[in-house]
């Protein structure tokens, strides 16, 4: 099984868009679960959505959580604290840029890499070339 990915965003559309873009690169081999927006559909985060997404993406290889803004870290951390310790150990919260990190993480995860490798791949999102050509 491939490392799972959780996308936490303040916007439901943003989370779904990231999952759709990253999912294109992993050909359905990677579970990309989303937690976007609040429970009532406004802009914000929802611990219940994060918890559900963590459950959906949970697997023996681990899960990488990517976030849109710093304030989503707190809700993600609270959701992690609610997991039992073995599960919690298999989850990493990434500091990578959301979109770029998710695409690279999806590519890496679909290759069967470890959680650590997927997390490192996501961090390469900082260097994703966008016009500054190598």
């Amino acid at each position: 099984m491939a490392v799972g990915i959780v996308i936490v965003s303040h916007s439901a559309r943003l989370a779904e868009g990231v999952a759709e873009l990253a999912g294109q690169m992993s050909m359905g081999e990677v579970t990309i679960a989303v937690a976007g927006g609040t429970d009532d559909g406004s802009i914000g985060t929802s611990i219940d959505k994060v918890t559900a997404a963590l459950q959906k993406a949970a697997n023996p290889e681990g899960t990488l959580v990517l976030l849109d803004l710093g304030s989503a870290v707190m809700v993600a951390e609270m959701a992690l604290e609610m997991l039992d310790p073995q599960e919690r150990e298999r989850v990493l919260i990434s500091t990578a840029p959301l979109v770029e990190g998710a695409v690279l993480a999806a590519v890496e995860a679909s290759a069967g890499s470890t959680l650590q490798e997927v997390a490192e791949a996501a961090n390469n999102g900082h260097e994703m070339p966008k016009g500054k050509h190598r």
Partner: protein
Amino acid sequence: MPVTNETILQWLQRSAQVLHENNAYLTELDSAIGDADHGSNMDRGFNAVITKIADMQEADIGTLLKTVGTTLVSTVGGASGPLYGTAFLRAGMATTGKKALETADIVAMFEAAVEGVKARGKAQAGEKTMLDALIPAIEAGKQAQLEQVDIPELLKRMAASAASGMQSTIGLTATKGRASYLGERSVGHQDPGATSSWLIVQALADTVAS
């Protein structure tokens, strides 16, 4: 005269009411240095709280406050959700099983809450957050405890310190949360979270005074 579970219920109801009345004000503050939702976040959260605690007249204070915490975490939707959520959860843990709080319990309850906010937000005093209202409040509370004033006076002093701490955020540069995206431009604006924190502490002082 100790603070009973009934007092705590009244405090929570008063907080909900005050936050509802200040919805537009808090949102206006948040629109200057954030995303203009702190009022609706807090109103939504405390509205859910009063529904949740409506039938909890018999519950002890710890149970009551933990319920508030989990409800806020689930419903606020902003950074203040995990922060106030953690604050009330920790306050609940510090008051487990109690149906009445003496001075020391009140101070311990607030101290636990403030430590929870610090841990959750990895923040400290002077970063232009709710902590700049809460830390002066707990310091005033400890000082009042040393001076052995009665509970209404202790809470009055805590609320007054929260208010001046809140005002002090105007001069601060935000280094945590969304307001930090503004950098130096956050100076000159009062922090919305410090304002809601003051409102909540004030609501307790008012509940006990009346």
